[in-house]
């Protein structure tokens, strides 16, 4: 008798939790549901109804394109995104790792000010540097290239990775580094033998976060590249959506393709993603 209000309470809590779960899944449900069905049975007016046929024709069309409907396929864009994202992730994570190591264990007069100045780079609106950025990228001959876009994406990721690694290295006891120093290990030896191997969790968080951010990036891409041959998938998707006549299941399949890599990573290793946010390391 006594437990009734309590279990009723629990029931309400679970109902609320499930309600929000449904709410958060709703857009993805609509996207996936429309993308896995054939054009004959799909319509915007029945978007909530569970797909009655199963067909991957939407994916095929979104991937290879359809000149009749006036859009190019996302396949090449997808490849471009990989080519742009992977080097940018490697560079920004590596630089952030070194910076975090120096800013925590090799402080020098003024180092904290330098850290704060670096951190500010994370918050600036890209708009405030876009016009001169185009000029400078043009001057060094990287305008309209994947490497130019990749380089810029890496640079604007340094601040967040530095913050992430600084937070992580702050949890490594200074005594550990001191001991290694007394034993005669130098700056690089301590980094490569102790700090870097210990930072594996932070490394994972940083790689996942940077991959997500750069893969999902859009503004730098439309300003620094013009030709579809070098543009990333976010641009490709909006080009496709903007085409005069494109079928609804193909649009949704395209959106699904564009988000698949980051979503898959999240589903596989959400543990690290969540851990990163919860440790307060990721802000931006």
């Amino acid at each position, binding site marked *: 008798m006594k437990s009734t209000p309590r279990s009723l309470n629990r029931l309400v*809590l*679970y109902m609320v*939790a499930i309600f*929000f779960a449904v709410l*958060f*899944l709703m857009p*993805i449900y*609509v996207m996936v549901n429309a993308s896995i069905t054939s054009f004959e049975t799909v319509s915007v007016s029945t*978007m*909530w109804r569970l797909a009655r046929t199963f067909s991957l024709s939407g994916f095929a069309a979104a991937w290879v394109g359809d000149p009749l409907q006036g859009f190019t396929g996302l396949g090449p864009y997808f490849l471009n995104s990989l080519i742009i994202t992977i080097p940018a992730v490697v560079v920004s994570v590596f*630089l952030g790792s070194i*910076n975090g190591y*120096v800013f925590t264990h*090799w*402080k*020098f*007069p003024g180092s*904290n000010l*330098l850290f704060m100045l*670096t*951190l*500010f*780079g994370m*918050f*600036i*609106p890209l*708009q*405030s*540097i*876009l*016009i*001169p950025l185009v000029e*400078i990228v043009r001057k060094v001959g990287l305008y309209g290239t994947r490497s130019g876009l990749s380089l810029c994406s890496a*640079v604007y990721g*340094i601040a967040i990775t530095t913050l992430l690694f600084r937070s992580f290295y702050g949890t490594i006891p*200074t005594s550990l580094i001191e001991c290694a120093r007394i034993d005669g290990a*130098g*700056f690089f030896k301590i980094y490569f033998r102790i700090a870097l191997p210990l930072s594996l969790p932070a490394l994972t968080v940083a790689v996942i976060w940077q991959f*997500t951010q750069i*893969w*999902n990036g*859009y503004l730098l891409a*439309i300003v620094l590249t013009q030709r579809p041959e070098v543009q990333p998938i*976010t641009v490709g998707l*909006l080009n496709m959506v903007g085409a005069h006549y494109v079928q609804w299941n193909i649009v949704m399949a395209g*959106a699904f393709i*564009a988000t698949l890599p*980051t*979503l898959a*990573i*999240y*589903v596989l290793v*959400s543990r690290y*993603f*969540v851990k990163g*946010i*919860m*440790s*307060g390391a990721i802000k*931006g």
Partner: protein
Amino acid sequence: MKEQTARYAFGRHWNRHRDRFYAVLSLLPSLVLIFVFVYLLIGWNTVIAFSKWHGLKTDLSFNGLKNFIELFQDARFQIGMRNMGVFALVFISGCIVLGFLLALLLDQGLKWEGFFRNLYIYPLAISLIVTGVVWRWLFTPGSEQTGWIGLNQLFDFVGLHFLKSGWHTSQSFGIVAVAIAATWQMSGYVMAMYLAAIRSIPVELKEAAVIDGASPSRYYLHIVIPLVRTTTVSAVVILGHIALRVFDLVAAMTGSGKGFITDVPAFYMWQTSFQGNRFNRGAAIALVLLVLISGLVIPYIARTYRTSDEQGG
């Protein structure tokens, strides 16, 4: 013997200096990049914002305050600033309230807590472009005659007729619809921040509150909310700077909309610079955004990360 000690000391001294040199050296690439790509370009943008560069040919001659006077008198800019304000208000308060409530919910020791938590956060992994494309369809209103579509259809079906709206196509509602999609994307993130903060409250405090006879609601209201204040400040700063520079979502969902109902300065800046070649106006808008964001972020960075340099070795 004495000489050996001296040499040893000298060696260690030299090692320390060498290591410090390496430390600064390895920071150098990042510092140069940040200096050039952030500070130099901001300076350059400032020059452009005060220049006569209006058209394809670069013209950096000084134009005084004229660009800014014209900008603030510009109707599109005024509408955009107002939209940005509404967006920020809805988005920030939405994320804070929803994030906090979800954190409280998950703090009740539910089964499958990890499952629910991951589910509430996953939108963060999705591109704002994809979010915009999908939500644009969810928000497509339809009509009485042709049949309701998307959310309106859903509301119609469950009998919540008063919730039907023109969403992003509506004159009065427009930008709020964009803010709702943004809230969907970011509230799980705020939840994770609050959850971490609530979990770091010492158990003794909760026990003491229970012994003192405080009800759960009093415990949350009088103990938890004040204790997570710094988290709230962080969340407001982070969400605030996102709100001021929101671009992708607007570009994917609506563009500037009919009569600029969903226009924001960040979008105006891009359009006027890169489609209209009005570089001085674009740079001026960018500078306004930068000043607003700096006012929000610089005090936060200074307060959060200011530790004395002397502590370090």
